[in-house]
């Protein structure tokens, strides 16, 4: 098998993950002949260091709760305790943001320091002795929680954060008593529309200033600010501004309570009903690490996962909406020939029959996985035909995370298709000129004009579609492909890193991995020993030295979604 696929899969001895792929495939990204601006591909750097010691730096050894721990120099006590499994409760500290030490929730006792110290702000020193569970610390923690809850409306039943709220969790862990306050609570704006994506509930806000720091430090737009003082201190937008930056929904993620809620997710579902699957955002060539939150084969939101090499802690608003393409009503579930639903086998057999001895155009997709593109390359080699690459058009980008190339797998498609320089324009021109008798589209995405789409009905047009798009509707044979939320597959992002997309649910109906569908066609054409999608994934993982993916392939149980009820708080 390795021999059969060796021409489409990179050699097994390629360098470990951070190193780019062989440069022959790298330089020109898919575009309509446009030379793209070189973007700074480094994610925003987290100001706080993780506590794991790194090679080449002198570590620091300190004692936390009587246990010795060796951590990286420059990290803080909170991170060091986390390494020991000691989760010091905190609100305002976030590894990706600067330190404010304003919530005073993470106070700990440190020897030779008179007062309790905020553990997020204290840098580790050799021979430090820290107590995180002494009676004084526990009392301080409980009393700080009481202060925080003084004006909190406790409207958990209508709060979208309930279930993954830090305040709820810390209250249950550290306070768990009734209120002693007998004066009325301060009223603040309850639902204020502060941006395109965000609603603010100022009453719920615990004034940790994470969102303010996010807007200052990551997009650098500083729309949020604190107004008034003392009890009346309120989070608000700065005069004349609205929270409209391209990364605004990250403020919802960093918010430890439900003060900032996303309009898209507002009242959609309760968080504890959701299943979380670690996957990759298919919105652009950056390939941010994300969690897909689903219930009953329906996606509800995407939230970023921490990946220091790709996206830090963040993702863009545009990418959050890629889950919309998983809408159940748009899915293609069964094979169709000229609009009539047929058994999958019939459609595959017809496709194989129609491809033989014809002039075929094979359209690779920079939106499909590398495995699918490799399989199509194999089919192309067997049948013989012209190669094209199709994808979403170039759009806006910036220097933070958003890439102008809106395809997740431009590099992977290019790698699999070989030296291909033909894109939308050439395809449209040649299809209009009736240069081919058959055309195979690997994905349902792509900007083709209506004239070209109408022309598709005159020839054998085959589309591997996961949802109903104009392109899928125009094709005569539609094969039901599984979407990115249903398969284990890999993308190769703009830096040449292997990005993994994992299944959140089983494919419905006859839907299958595109590589497996093409495998069926190859078998129909008389080819035996065809690699399955899973085998292709394993070869890719070995080639890139992707240990996590290899472990997942060995133990598929690790791929299963986690119920958010048993996961931790987020934010």
């Amino acid at each position, binding site marked *: 098998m390795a021999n059969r696929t060796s021409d489409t899969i990179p050699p097994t001895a390629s360098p470990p993950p951070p190193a780019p792929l062989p440069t022959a495939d790298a330089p020109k990204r898919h575009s309509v002949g446009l030379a793209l601006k070189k973007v700074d591909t480094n994610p925003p750097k987290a100001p706080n260091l993780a506590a794991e010691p790194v090679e080449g730096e002198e570590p620091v050894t300190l004692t936390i709760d009587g246990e010795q721990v060796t951590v990286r120099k420059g990290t803080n006590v909170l991170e060091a305790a986390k390494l020991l499994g000691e989760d010091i409760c905190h609100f305002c500290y976030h590894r990706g943001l600067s330190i404010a030490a304003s919530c005073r929730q993470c106070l700990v006792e440190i020897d030779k320091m008179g007062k309790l110290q905020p553990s997020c702000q204290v840098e580790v020193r050799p021979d430090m002795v820290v107590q995180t569970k002494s009676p004084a610390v526990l009392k301080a923690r409980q009393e700080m929680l009481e202060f925080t809850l003084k004006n909190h409306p406790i409207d958990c039943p209508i709060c979208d954060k309930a279930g993954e709220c830090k305040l709820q969790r810390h209250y249950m862990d550290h306070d768990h008593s009734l209120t002693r306050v007998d004066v009325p609570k301060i009223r603040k704006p*309850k639902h204020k529309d502060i941006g395109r994506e965000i609603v603010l509930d100022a009453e719920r806000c615990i004034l940790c200033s994470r969102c303010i720091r996010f807007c200052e430090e990551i997009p650098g737009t500083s729309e949020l600010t604190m107004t008034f003082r003392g009890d009346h201190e309120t989070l608000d937008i700065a005069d004349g501004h609205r929270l409209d930056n391209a990364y605004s929904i990250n403020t919802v993620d960093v918010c430890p309570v439900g003060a900032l809620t996303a309009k898209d997710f507002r009242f959609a579902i309760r968080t504890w009903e959701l299943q979380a699957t670690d996957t990759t955002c298919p919105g652009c060539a950056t390939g941010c690490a994300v969690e897909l939150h689903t219930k009953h084969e329906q996606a509800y939101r995407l939230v970023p996962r921490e990946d220091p090499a790709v996206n830090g802690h963040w993702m863009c608003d545009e990418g959050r909406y890629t889950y919309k393409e998983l809408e159940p009503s748009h899915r293609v579930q069964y094979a169709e020939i000229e609009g009539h639903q047929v058994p999958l086998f019939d459609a595959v057999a017809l496709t194989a029959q129609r491809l033989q001895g014809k002039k075929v155009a094979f359209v690779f997709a920079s939106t499909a996985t590398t495995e699918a593109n490799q399989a199509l390359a194999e089919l192309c080699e067997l049948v013989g035909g012209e190669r094209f690459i199709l994808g979403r058009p170039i759009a806006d980008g910036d220097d933070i995370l958003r890439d102008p190339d809106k395809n997740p797998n431009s590099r992977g498609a290019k790698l699999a298709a070989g030296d291909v320089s033909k894109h939308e324009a050439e395809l449209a021109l040649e299809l209009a000129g009736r240069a081919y008798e058959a055309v195979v589209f690997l994905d349902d995405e792509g900007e083709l004009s209506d004239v070209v789409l109408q022309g598709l009905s005159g020839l054998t047009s085959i589309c591997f579609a996961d949802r109903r798009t104009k392109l899928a509707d125009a094709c005569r044979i539609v094969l039901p492909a599984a979407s990115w939320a249903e398969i284990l597959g890999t993308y190769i992002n703009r830096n040449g890193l292997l990005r993994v997309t994992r299944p959140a649910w089983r494919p419905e109906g006859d839907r299958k991995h595109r590589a497996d569908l093409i495998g069926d066609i190859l078998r129909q054409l008389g080819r035996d020993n065809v690699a399955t999608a899973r085998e292709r994934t394993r070869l890719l993982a070995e080639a890139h030295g992707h240990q996590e993916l290899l472990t997942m392939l060995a133990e598929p149980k690790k791929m299963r979604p986690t119920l958010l009820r048993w996961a931790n708080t987020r934010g």
Partner: protein
Amino acid sequence: MTIGVKKVSLTRTTRDQIFLPAILEGLLTTARHFFKNTLTPGMGDIDTIRYGEPEVDVKDYYPDRFRGVHRLMYREDGSVRCVACMCCSTVCPARCIYIHAEDRRDDQEKAPASFVIDELKCVVCGFCVEACPCDAIRMDTKEHMVPTETREEAVLGKIDLMKRGGPSVAVQGGAAPNYREVAPKRDPRFEHDPQ
């Protein structure tokens, strides 16, 4: 503690062996109850409820904690008390409650756009009532689910459930008309102890 053995004597007397006295005793008891319950004007100590007769309200005989068909309570302004927190649908062991939330665009913020209970699936456990933080759902109607001709009729929507409902002025936390504006009563158990 060890298990001891108790020895019971099984010897029978002549009276036991001829059976007749025991039979007559039993017949006497039966006869006494028969004449007492049929001949006395107030029907003696008979406990049968004359179910279905117009002058008898069967609800008077049910205990207060009897769990009947669900109902949804409403606020003073007539809007449903439910805030679609999904606590009931989460705790429901039969998964028979289906709620979709909507934005009310006022200070109550959230309300159910649809609230459906499939009474055929319901196991009448009453967990939903326990879980409700807003006194929105109750099972105190003392009504049995009436048998229906089609399945659809047994699936009750928000309107059906509110028809049985009534006004409720209960407050979250159980203290005052508006829990945010008026502080709750002091609980002596949690009085501050200055140590």
